């Protein structure tokens, strides 16, 4: 369940529901408030008009005015002739309103419409002048009403207006709002019902939409899961849709492609590496087992140990080269960039190979023009020693190796040329592959890991350069490294 509530879909649905609910509630409340307000205002106007009607009917002339004179006691504030009573209705005659009958009057005159209106008039000395039959049993607290600032006030289902004429008559007019309140309640209920259905429909629609929206995500995650489970060839189906998600799916597919390629490279490298290590291990194993099988002469033991040592050295070479490559792959190489002279690095790296050249009777010819570079001199020295080492190792006895450095228009070039047997055309495209050994090189590959050129390529490319080979069988090989001068 926890997983479910955390799901994107659930969250979208929850937010969607909450927002919908808030909007609907706000809308409903507003509608209700406006209706109530309208009803109240109408009632209040009615109450005012009824108050006037009651004043006209029950308050004696000369006591009616609200206007002049303070709240002081009653008094004939205007002569009968020039009376300008307020409100001006009396000019047009009494307000055209029926009033509920007085208490004690014949009930047959009661008008149904007037059921809800009631009134009571008190004289300034507190006597009830008149009262309608519809007056509720419980009357409001007149004192409190007088204190309140509003002319009308709500008391339960009653809306009441209490007015005091300057002459001191108290006129209470009220309205039983049962009908209006019931209507408002009905409105509230229908609003709630409508809101509920809208909410339900909205949620259902939202669920449907989120289902639709989430379906591609589901298929993406399903594909990703299958890939995680080990099927690297799996891809997300992007056919048929053209939206942000299919864009994402395409990006993911591209990423998966690269991952798969990288895994394949990794797997091939591991297979190659284990293959390369298996042969020397086999030599050590069979040599030692054969030597231990029976008593042997010291010479035989020595020979067996020599073989084992050679195999172990070869393994060490492979392991070291693999580490260099792995570090190179990890991008560690870019860390120590500095300015240096390629000619100087080449001279130092070549000097270390003099003895190998002497042992193979190969002559080294150096033609090194200074050329400034920015990069990792130690790794570029490795490139030099790998290339020159190969040129010596695979050379003929009495052969030559030429090493040149030059500044060729914005690029530094390193050229290593030998008089070896050359490389077969079929091997040329693959000689920079890891563990690949050209046919002619194989039989002489003793102690060579098959990683040297792969390392060269990796280092040169990390420096933004290129490495190329030109060769013809029987005529030697030329390796050319071009590096950008930073």
């Amino acid at each position, binding site marked *: 369940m926890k997983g479910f509530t955390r799901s994107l879909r659930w969250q979208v649905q929850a937010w969607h529901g909450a927002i919908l609910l808030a909007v609907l509630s706000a809308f409903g409340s507003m509608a209700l408030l406006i209706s109530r307000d309208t009803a109240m205002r109408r009632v209040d106007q009615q109450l005012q008009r009824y108050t006037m009607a009651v004043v006209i009917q029950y308050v004696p002339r000369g006591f009616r005015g609200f206007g002049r004179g303070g709240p002081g006691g009653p008094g004939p504030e205007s002569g009968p002739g020039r009376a300008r009573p307020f409100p001006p209705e009396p000019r047009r005659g009494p307000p055209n309103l029926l009033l509920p009958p007085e208490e004690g009057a014949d009930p047959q005159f009661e008008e149904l419409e007037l059921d809800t209106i009631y009134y009571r008039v008190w004289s300034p000395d507190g006597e009830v002048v008149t009262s309608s039959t519809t007056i509720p049993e419980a009357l409001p607290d007149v004192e409190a009403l007088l204190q309140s600032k509003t002319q009308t006030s709500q008391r339960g289902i009653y809306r009441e207006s209490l007015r005091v004429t300057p002459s001191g008559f108290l006129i209470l007019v009220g309205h039983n709002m049962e009908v209006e309140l019931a209507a408002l309640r009905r409105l509230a209920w229908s609003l709630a019902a409508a809101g509920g259905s809208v909410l339900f429909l909205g949620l259902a629609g939202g669920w449907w939409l989120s289902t639709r929206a989430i379906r591609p995500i589901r298929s993406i995650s399903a594909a990703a899961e299958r890939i995680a489970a080990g099927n690297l060839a799996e891809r997300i189906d992007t056919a048929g849709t053209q939206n942000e998600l299919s864009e994402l799916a395409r990006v993911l597919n591209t990423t998966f492609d690269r991952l798969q390629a990288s895994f394949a490279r990794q797997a091939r490298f591991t297979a190659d590496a284990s293959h390369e290590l298996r*042969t020397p291990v086999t030599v050590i194993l*069979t040599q030692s087992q054969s030597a231990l099988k029976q008593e042997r002469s010291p010479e035989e033991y020595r020979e067996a140990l020599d073989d084992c040592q050679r195999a172990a050295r070869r393994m060490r070479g492979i392991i070291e080269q693999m580490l260099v490559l792995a570090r190179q792959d990890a991008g560690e190489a870019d860390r120590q960039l500095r300015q240096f002279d390629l000619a100087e690095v080449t001279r130092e790296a070549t000097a270390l190979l003099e003895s190998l050249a002497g042992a193979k009777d190969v002559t080294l010819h150096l033609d090194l023009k200074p050329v400034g570079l920015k990069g990792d001199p130690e790794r570029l020295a490795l490139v030099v020693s790998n290339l020159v080492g190969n040129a010596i190792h695979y050379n003929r006895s009495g052969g030559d190796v030429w090493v040149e450095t030059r500044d060729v228009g914005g690029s530094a070039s390193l050229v290593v040329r030998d008089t070896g047997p050359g490389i077969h055309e079929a091997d040329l495209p693959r000689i920079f592959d890891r563990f690949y050994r050209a046919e002619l090189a194989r*039989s002489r590959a003793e102690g060579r890991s098959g990683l040297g050129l792969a390392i060269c390529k990796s280092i040169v490319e990390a420096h933004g350069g290129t490495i190329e080979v030109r060769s013809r069988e029987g005529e030697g090989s030329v390796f050319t490294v071009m590096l950008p001068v930073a």
Partner: protein
Amino acid sequence: MRLLVVEDEPDLLKTLAKSLREEGYAVDTAMDGVEGLSKARDWDYDAVVLDVQLPGLDGWELLRRLRQKRKTPVLMLTARDTLNDRVRGLDTGADDYLVKPFELEELLARLRALIRRGAGQGESSLRVGEVVVDMAARRVTRGGDAITLTAREYALVEFMVLHRGKVVTRTMLYEHLFDEDDNTLSNLLDVHVSNVRKKLGHDFITTRRGHGYSIE
């Protein structure tokens, strides 16, 4: 028993050949596929030990071409241990399959079984009169007593026993008991036959004059 070992790693080839010779096998060697194929085709080896990764002609191709001519038992040596490789090896006609690095003893045991099966002999122990040849342990007893034989003598006995009831010519013996480096013009064979007769009884090996030898 004469074997061919095809392996491009010189140290490994040297060790294998030496170990196998010490077991009494006659061993020929080849360092690449082309040489290996020509030897395997030209001679009737009792078994071939074949490395898969070879320069010139790889082990698979060599095996495929060899199978067009001979049914010599072949044990493949490979550095790749995947099901695909094993299936491919057996499908191409390899008789057995060993992944590098292997135990020397296992290689020897598998070769013994391979040679026995190649000669149509399932049992690892054979009795001729009161002589019992245990080919798994490479031991010979006569009337229950262990008889000490040199590797070459044992190879002679084993070859004769595996071809029991048939006439084995001197040429066959030379071809299967001596490798390319031995001087086959010597009368070494007669010396070995005579020594075996001294140890296992004069009647153990019958001379078929003008034809060769046989074990009844």
